[in-house]
């Protein structure tokens, strides 16, 4: 597929194509922004679970959530040239590094932290 056709639209002319995506490619940006929000919520949820057993580690993980949300907010800020987010692969790398770090912290908590069995009884 080539560049979106929305750029070729003129005022007063009917939108081209039946696909809403053709009429408004911004919907893809919106969906991506929502995906970032869900990811931020996932971080917060994991932090909440860890908070039950290790407060400091839990707070660190919860603190990542607003950072992820902020990264997602950048999905709305597009470069005028490419219509892409102003920050590209850095955001992907930050998320990857965050998940690896969170996994390692969780592993430490799982191996060394005091368990609270019966919490699910």
């Amino acid at each position, binding site marked *: *597929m*080539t*560049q*979106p056709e929305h750029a070729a639209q003129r005022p007063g002319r009917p939108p081209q194509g039946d696909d809403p*995506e053709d009429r408004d*490619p911004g919907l*893809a*940006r919106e*969906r*991506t922004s929502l*995906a*970032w929000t*869900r*990811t931020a919520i*996932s*971080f917060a*949820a*994991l932090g909440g*679970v*860890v908070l*039950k*057993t290790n407060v400091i580690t839990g707070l660190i993980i919860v603190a990542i959530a607003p*950072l992820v949300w*902020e*990264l997602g*907010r*950048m*999905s709305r*800020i597009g470069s005028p040239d*490419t*219509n*892409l987010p*102003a*920050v*590209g*692969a*850095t955001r*992907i*790398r*930050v*998320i*990857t590094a965050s*998940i*690896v770090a*969170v*996994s*390692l912290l*969780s*592993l430490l*908590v*799982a*191996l060394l*932290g005091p*368990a*609270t*069995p*019966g*919490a*699910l*009884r």
Partner: protein
Amino acid sequence: MSWSGLLATLRPRAVAKDEDGTEPDPRFTFANERTFLAWSRTALALVVAGLGIVQLLPPFPGVPIGRHLLGVPLIVLGAVLAVVAYAEWVRNQRALRRGEPLPRSIIPWVLAVTIAGMAVVSAIVLLASALR
């Protein structure tokens, strides 16, 4: 400086400056990004599940390491999945830029094999616990 401005200074060039390719349709780039995020959430869910098993489940009678046997691999898989998802994002973005066919993803295979393995281990732990 705002968060946005601070992070914007970290703008990478490796993928964006792929000399062999051109900028693909933004919708494809966004779709690739959403796929990466979906796998990231799956990775986080695995970590949560592993942590929950180790920390919150009652111990299996007769299998003292049962919870760790089930939980720790899930946490490790979460970390591995995040890294593999990043690698897939890079490969897909490169293919999009060059107009090549998208490479086949190995993540579903890795996830399926690991979950199947975990199901077998879970069954063994539960049986061993029940027989004690």
